[in-house]
């Protein structure tokens, strides 16, 4: 039997200003699985990920990580979680290395040295890791952030547009890192993306999220089959068009 790392049950979110951003999202992710959330701008991807990360409270619904409720056991669950925000930034006056050290200590990992070493490797920044991040390019900062999130080998990694702002080489590298990471650690990953190529390449399963609801969910190959198109991008467009007509 496959072990489910994440169970999201009927998540709803109404923001303080009345925006009904997520209207009943349910899905689960198994060990060693990469799940892709795709959808147009404003569909509710980031809101969903933030609820799973325990950053914002769902108006309704529950989130379980390894069977533990995110809001009832925050400290235990947060240690199991890695979350890369869509628009995260780093501290300009600290070096990349100091970031890795800081977050390793903050999470109270057992072997700080080993964790940081793995982080340096994940970042692929080489000697630049000892530079202050104010000297980094956007892509370098994004890679550092990804390393911060993954170096602890969290059971569940939530990656909100992990390759946003990266060039082709950077994106390819990050995809390799994610793929290798899941193979090695058997962790579960949920990622959101606007890049269908990326999703098709990386994800074992995808959920089309539209207007706060998951409207299609399956293996990429099966979705392509179902819509009778040649790639995920076309399937996506077709699916969305179908819903816009409704």
């Amino acid at each position, binding site marked *: 039997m496959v072990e489910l790392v994440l169970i999201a049950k009927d998540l709803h979110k109404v*923001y*303080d*200003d009345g925006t009904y951003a997520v209207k009943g999202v349910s899905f689960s992710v198994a060990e060693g699985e990469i799940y892709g959330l795709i959808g147009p701008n404003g569909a509710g991807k980031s809101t969903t990920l933030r609820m799973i*990360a*325990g*950053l*914002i*409270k769902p108006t309704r619904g529950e989130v379980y990580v390894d069977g533990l409720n995110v809001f009832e056991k*925050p*400290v235990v669950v*947060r*240690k199991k*979680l890695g*979350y890369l*925000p869509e*628009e*995260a*930034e*780093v*501290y300009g*006056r*600290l070096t990349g290395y*100091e970031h890795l050290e*800081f*977050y390793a*200590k*903050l*999470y*109270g990992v057992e072997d700080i040295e080993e964790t940081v070493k793995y982080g340096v490797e994940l970042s692929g920044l080489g000697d630049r890791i000892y530079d202050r991040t104010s000297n980094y390019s956007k892509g370098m900062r994004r890679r550092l*952030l990804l390393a*911060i999130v993954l170096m602890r080998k969290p059971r569940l990694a939530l990656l909100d547009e992990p390759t946003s702002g990266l060039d082709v080489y950077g994106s390819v590298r990050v995809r390799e890192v994610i793929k290798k990471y899941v193979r090695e650690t058997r962790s579960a990953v949920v990622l959101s993306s606007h890049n269908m190529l990326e999703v098709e390449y990386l994800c074992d399963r995808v959920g089309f999220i539209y207007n706060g609801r998951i409207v299609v969910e399956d293996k990429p190959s099966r979705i392509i089959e179902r819509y009778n198109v040649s790639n995920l991008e076309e399937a996506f467009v077709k699916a969305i068009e179908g819903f816009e007509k409704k």
Partner: protein
Amino acid sequence: MIGRDISVLLDKELKDLWRDRKTLITTIILPLVMLPLLGIVSLALIAQQPVNVAIVDLDSTRSTDPLLNLTVDSRWLVDNLTYHLHKYGYNVLLANSTQVVSDPDVDVVVVIPEGFSRNATSLKTTAKITVYRKAGYQSAARAESTIHSIVSVFSRNLSNYKLKALSKLAGINATLSALRNPVQAYTELVTVHGVPVSIEVELRNAFARILVLALSFVVTPAASYVIDGIIGERERKTIELLLVSPAPLSHIIYAKMIAATILGIIAAIFDALGLVTYIVLASISYGANIGLIIDYKLLIIHAITAFFTILATITIALPFITRTRGIRSASNVAGIVTTVGIVFFFTGFMIDYVKLSPEILYPLYIIPYVHSILAIQTYMLGYIYRSLLHLLFLAIVSIGLLVFTTKTINSEKLLIAPP
């Protein structure tokens, strides 16, 4: 362990602060250099303000009273005034007519009227001198008081001469002071417990008042640091990664508050050092004994007071800071809190809070700044125990308030700016 994540967070904050040279320079170098510099510059500027004094001698005569064998020449007074005013750096010009009063370039005019020497020598009349001072200039007021003291010395000498001559005529042996000031008051400076003290204690008290005033300089940098630390993390998009960590939000905020307070106390120490430097420089030019004015225990009390004053200020501002949209509106809110503090410290500079009646003072106890002021004022009066009590109260209030207010903030509110 509860403390571990705070120390990790604090370590990061301090690293960041240490590398934030702009903030450090403005809180350390600025008071250390600016306060003495301002003092020197203002002293130098005082000397640089040209004040033009005109003397009009409408008398220009010499009179002698044969009975007293006393001679007075109005030109003697003119020479006296000219000599001393020159010595203090005033420009003196001699004029022939009172027309000179209408000259805008002339700040002070001394008019010696006709009949001056006659009236001054007489036993029946007084010689009157008119000093015209242009309103609105501090420097003119200083020149005026110099003129008055020169005239009063001149007058005392005349009076002494007259008294001596009269007692000689009367054939009596009198002491001058018995005639001039038969009744005199003396002051003995003592502590609240009646122990005699030297004049330096008064100077030390003046220094303590300035320290109270200096508290107003330290609350502002600390408040801006907290704002930048909390709202800035949101605006620079570093906060999300921090909030998702296992560290509770309260610990994240504690670490920032501690860092801000450390910054504040650094500011307090350097403000005090700046003041000390200023006093040293000032007293070198006045030739007073500084060693007695600077009380190191007072500086320690000041530093502790500053610590908790800052903590109380940023704690009061905290719930507002975390509920505002951006750095600017947060600064406005913090500005209101720090202004309240500054107003109180100004009153502390002028009012002896210790002297207020209980009906007025006790209600004021709810304001933390009142305890900051009282901690310093009671210490200066020798009530060490009361001073510590006020510090303790300040500590309990600021820490209690901090624990309470951090509980009212949730990470969702902090992450998402209010619309």
